[in-house]
């Protein structure tokens, strides 16, 4: 089984993003960047499948500037065999990312595509489903457990109120939930090895896709609402506050 995994370069989850003073966008120019945490789960699962002898090759793909090479090196250190960087100057919307991934899918012909369920920057949660729809392939979103069956996967999905288990034939597109696994720590030798693994670069223009913008960011602002916290002195005060809240 050949697996294609996606690796998005995002602001590190521990960085608190700031809005630019003119509100045109967030200011992340000097922020620490990381591999999207949900993509780490997707990659970890692919690596586990390879370790179990169920997968033969794992190809990581990232879309963006040359800086995404760092992200792909992380993916390679995590156990991917080779990587593809689709070089693009623009920060594409999910539908265009899905179109690019479709082109890579057609080129690579993997049996399984694994992605994180959402990226922690735009929180869109769209690419997996869009790609599956475009390719008319089975989809399993929010996967928290994957078992390999005969040319198929049995997947437990996290849904509202509990879980659902479905079986999807391969090829399929799967998105990883946080609870799918616990990504391992990368050790120094793996980082060294990753430097020797190949990264193929493809200019997005070479793919010949129509990737026009479908929306525009008007403005962004701080979404945080801090409150004036009244400190309570006793349990009695606490009870009164709770009773008042209960009746509201």
């Amino acid at each position, binding site marked *: 089984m050949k697996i294609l995994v996606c690796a998005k370069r995002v602001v590190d989850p521990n960085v608190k993003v700031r809005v630019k003073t003119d509100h045109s966008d967030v200011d992340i120019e000097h922020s620490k960047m990381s591999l999207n945490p949900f993509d780490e789960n997707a990659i970890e699962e692919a690596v586990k499948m390879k370790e179990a002898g169920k997968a033969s090759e794992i190809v990581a793909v990232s879309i963006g500037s040359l800086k995404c090479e760092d992200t792909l090196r992380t993916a390679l250190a995590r156990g991917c065999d080779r990587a593809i960087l689709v070089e693009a100057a623009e920060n594409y919307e999910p*539908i265009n990312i899905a179109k690019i991934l479709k082109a890579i899918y057609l080129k690579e012909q993997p049996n399984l595509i694994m992605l994180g369920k959402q990226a922690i920057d735009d929180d869109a949660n769209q690419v997996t489903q869009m790609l599956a729809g475009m390719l008319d392939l089975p989809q399993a979103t929010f996967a928290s457990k994957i078992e390999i069956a005969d040319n198929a996967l049995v997947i437990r999905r996290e849904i509202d109120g509990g879980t659902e288990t479905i079986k999807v034939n391969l090829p399929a597109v799967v998105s990883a939930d946080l609870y799918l696994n616990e990504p391992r720590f990368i050790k120094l030798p793996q980082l060294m090895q990753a430097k020797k693994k190949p990264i193929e670069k493809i200019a997005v223009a070479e793919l010949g896709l129509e990737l026009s913008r479908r929306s525009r960011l008007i403005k962004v602002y701080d979404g945080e609402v801090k409150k004036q916290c009244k400190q309570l002195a006793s*349990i009695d005060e606490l009870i009164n506050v709770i009773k008042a809240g209960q009746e509201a």
Partner: protein
Amino acid sequence: MRVLVIGHATANQLSDSILNVLGAATKLNTKVDVLIIGKADITEIASLACIAKIIHLSDVSGEQMQSAFLAKSLAQIVKSYTHVLTAADSAGKDLLPRIAGILELSQISEVIGIISPNMFKRPMYAGNVVAEVESFEDIKLLTIRTTSFAKYTETGSGASIEEKSGLVEINPTTSFISQDIIHSDTIDLAHAKIVVTGGRSLGSKENFDDLIHTLALKLGAAVGASRAAVEAGYAPNDCQVGQTGKVVAPTLYLAIGISGAVQHIAGMKDSKTVVAINLDPNAQIFEYSDYGLVADLFDTIPQLINALS
């Protein structure tokens, strides 16, 4: 302008969240059509004033229906609308982007405000940032964060009902095996008026059950948990409140032993009254609370439970 709202029925019941989606849809100032996936009693919803027509796919099971089967035929229906809205719940998030992929349309996720027919507000970066976005699409596909819109309840002359069957083509590449709904007997977290949430300071699953569950029972509240508490195994995943879990906005939110990590705040900051109990006076949660008590939860919660008994 033609507006379509899509709703899923589970266990032969239509979730209340469709009323919030209708609340969002009516911001577009036009009557809407509603498409309901799955068997359900639709008499109540058919009486709402804002609905022109209900398209009911009653021959499929809402909870067993896979997006892979639905998306193709729904894409054909979607094409004749300018706006298509569905709840940003697990079913909506699974389905709408697949339709978008088939039609090669973009989607705007987790809409929290409708400014105009082509301008929308949505959160990014775990809710730390709110973005205003203008869509250039002829068909706007929107998933709606239901906690941001009031339920639509106005009744009127009644909608026309179109029962549709045989629309969905089931193919063998995907098959439903089972569903495991954990808390069908307790209060649904996403729609609860009161939420009691426990963090990792509870220390064990036993303490979590003894204190958080008992208090929630006394208050008629739903139980929530921080990501750390879920990861420590104190509570199941579907209890998780936060960016990576559920977004809640109850009238009363009790945060017990919660530190207030950014990702947790993203899931509860729209709650009306927030009360936090934490031993650490510098815990970030207090910055997002209306009332705070600096105290040991192991002393406080049993006393609270007693007082409410």
